[in-house]
């Protein structure tokens, strides 16, 4: 597993830099301490503390009834969590890897996302499904999927994904506090990314549904989220050499989508590239490009372009670098934004 720098560099000489995994752990810990209805459950989340150690220590501190090693059955995990939520608990479910969430799709689509609507508000589903997602960690088959398109296409779910250590804490707290079901996508290659965020002074709870501008710029907007944020930040730095001053928007929440922040940026810059790891075809970028175009058509000097994973099953580790959108592909896309045509 590789360590990446987060978007916000740990510049200040802070006491104890924390990783995203630690911030996530802390978010659950604080939520559990504050609210006895919060329960963590999943495969290996208890004694082991999760295969990524994100739930480390929770079973010890809160007992096995609050942080439970379940049988190995994803539909069963999510399905029982639905029942627990019906009784007033707030389950936080861990799916061990992206691709192992698929057996739970029936429960997610047919029940989690629809229960509130089905019961006309009588039975909300305040649960969180944590899914480590994305590639770049050299994982063998089924350990590196970017499955966000499935979640986005399911009305009734919120879909949230942090890209920084601070947001990992703030957004997970918000997800647990939410009365709606949240699919919380954790970019697994950023688990060991560090920042000066400190568990002693945890960041504020972030509202769900607000994108944030990570870098101000004037030439074009890079729209991205999760694992691709560091790539875009690096690309933006590199782009200055070519004379481009790129703005970078971190969506943080795919559902609800923050049209306001995104469109304000694109209207300012007049050009945009959407960057994500997920396959391009049918991926999040289509929705994003389409809605930005609908809303900002007359401000656009060029079509909104997409830089994404290829339309292929996730490749084996030895080939993944050819698949993952990197700085060069982002810059290539920026170069294709028809600079001759406009402003």
């Amino acid at each position, binding site marked *: 597993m590789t360590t990446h720098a987060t978007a916000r560099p740990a510049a200040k000489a802070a006491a104890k830099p924390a990783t995203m995994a630690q911030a996530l752990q802390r978010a659950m810990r604080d939520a559990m301490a504050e609210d006895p209805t919060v329960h963590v459950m999943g495969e290996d989340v208890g004694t082991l503390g999760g295969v990524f150690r994100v739930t480390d220590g929770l079973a010890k501190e809160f007992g096995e009834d609050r942080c439970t090693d379940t049988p190995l059955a994803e539909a069963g995990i999510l399905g029982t969590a639905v029942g627990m939520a019906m009784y007033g608990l707030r389950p936080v479910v861990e799916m061990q890897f992206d691709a192992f969430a698929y057996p739970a799709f029936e429960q997610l689509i047919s029940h989690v996302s629809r229960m*509130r609507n089905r019961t006309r508000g009588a039975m909300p589903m305040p649960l969180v499904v944590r899914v480590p997602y994305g590639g770049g960690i050299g994982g063998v088959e089924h350990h590196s999927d970017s499955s966000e398109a499935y979640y986005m296409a399911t009305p009734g779910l919120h879909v949230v994904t942090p890209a920084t250590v601070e947001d990992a804490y703030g957004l997970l707290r918000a997800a647990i506090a939410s009365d709606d079901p949240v699919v919380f996508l954790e970019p697994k290659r950023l688990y060991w990314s560090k920042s000066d965020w400190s568990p002693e002074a945890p960041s504020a709870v972030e509202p769900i549904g607000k994108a944030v501008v990570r870098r101000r710029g004037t030439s074009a907007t890079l729209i991205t989220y999760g694992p691709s944020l560091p790539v875009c930040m690096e690309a933006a730095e590199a782009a200055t050499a070519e004379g481009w001053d790129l703005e970078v928007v971190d969506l943080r929440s795919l559902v609800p989508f923050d049209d*306001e922040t995104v469109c304000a940026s694109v209207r300012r810059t007049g050009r945009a590239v959407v960057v994500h790891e997920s396959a391009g075809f049918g991926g999040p970028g289509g929705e994003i490009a389409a809605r930005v175009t609908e809303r900002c058509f007359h401000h656009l000097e060029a079509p909104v372009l997409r830089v994404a994973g290829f339309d292929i099953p996730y490749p084996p580790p030895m080939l993944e670098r050819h698949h993952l959108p990197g700085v060069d592909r982002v810059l290539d896309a920026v170069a294709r934004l028809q600079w001759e045509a406009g402003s």
Partner: protein
Amino acid sequence: MQQRSSTVQEPPGAARDAYRPTPPPAWRPRTDPAPLLPEAEPLRVLGTDAVADADPELLRRLYRELVRGRRYNAQATALTKQGRLAVYPSTTGQEACEVAAALALEERDWLFPSYRDTLAAVARGLDPVQALTLLRGDWHTGYDPREHRIAPLSTPLATQLPHAVGLAHAARLKGDDVVALAMVGDGGTSEGDFHEALNFAAVWQAPVVFLVQNNGFAISVPLAKQTAAPSLAHKAVGYGMPGRLVDGNDAVAVHQVLTEAVTRARRGGGPTLVEAITYRIDAHTNADDATRYRGDGEVETWRAHDPVLLLERELTERGLLDEDGRRAAAEEAETMAARLRERMNADPVLDPMDLFAHVYAEKTAQLREQAAQLRAELDAESEAG
């Protein structure tokens, strides 16, 4: 001990000559399987001396509910013909299971019905119109599940079983002595969710009872194409919970078995799987043509084993039911049917704007936009017409 060239390192103390094979260290039978096995034949009470042990009040109550249930089925079916109900999966012939399930529960307990089990909800006291809301084409759930402790009717088969387990588990964690009873068909037992639910229930020792109504068919597919098991109740042993096999048309037997299972669950004894052998007398739904997959002879055989008939005869024989009692039950049922008919004749009024009201706790910006669009369309429509 001679030196050997083995690639295996001898464990300390494992002296060569002391070698005596032993069973694998971790192995021990976790549960004695014998008590988990279901009865060899479906349990019956009617027609046996055990009826004498039953509370006469319970027997009369069961009878009245069966008669009401039969009438409810007939009325609901009639409503589909009149176009007042979009679809109705009838439980004619299965009333004993539906009614016993409802009566085995305390008020604080939860019922998890399948799409077919509106009668169980009605027998629990739910307003029939609310129970039929989904099937009428109105909103997906016609009642507040928390108020009635009845989960929404589950259309996707067996998917509500893990919910029942989770709810029962949560209640137990909270210290509430609440039991969940979950209903599923013979076909539904083939789904992965059935397996996962029963396994979680047994591992957690959750206070939940699974009632399988084996009515012989999953739409057109007969039991023999669904399973090769000795009985569906035999599945219990594979989860480490007791399986019970009962004549599903013997209301007293079903009630007894379910009550035992509920009591056991309430006392911390864990889950039970109950298989009730019954038969769907009507077609799968009003839209189905059952003649395509089964003969009339089979249906007639089962009519002779009708749950209402069985109980009625027994009670009459024992002097617990007379002409007055029968008439009173029939009249009570008629009143219910008349009220249902009447109320279902009124068209429900739905507000299209409710499409957006409960997708999330608060409308997203996108849903606000879409709601505004629909609002404008509706306004234009009503202006135009």
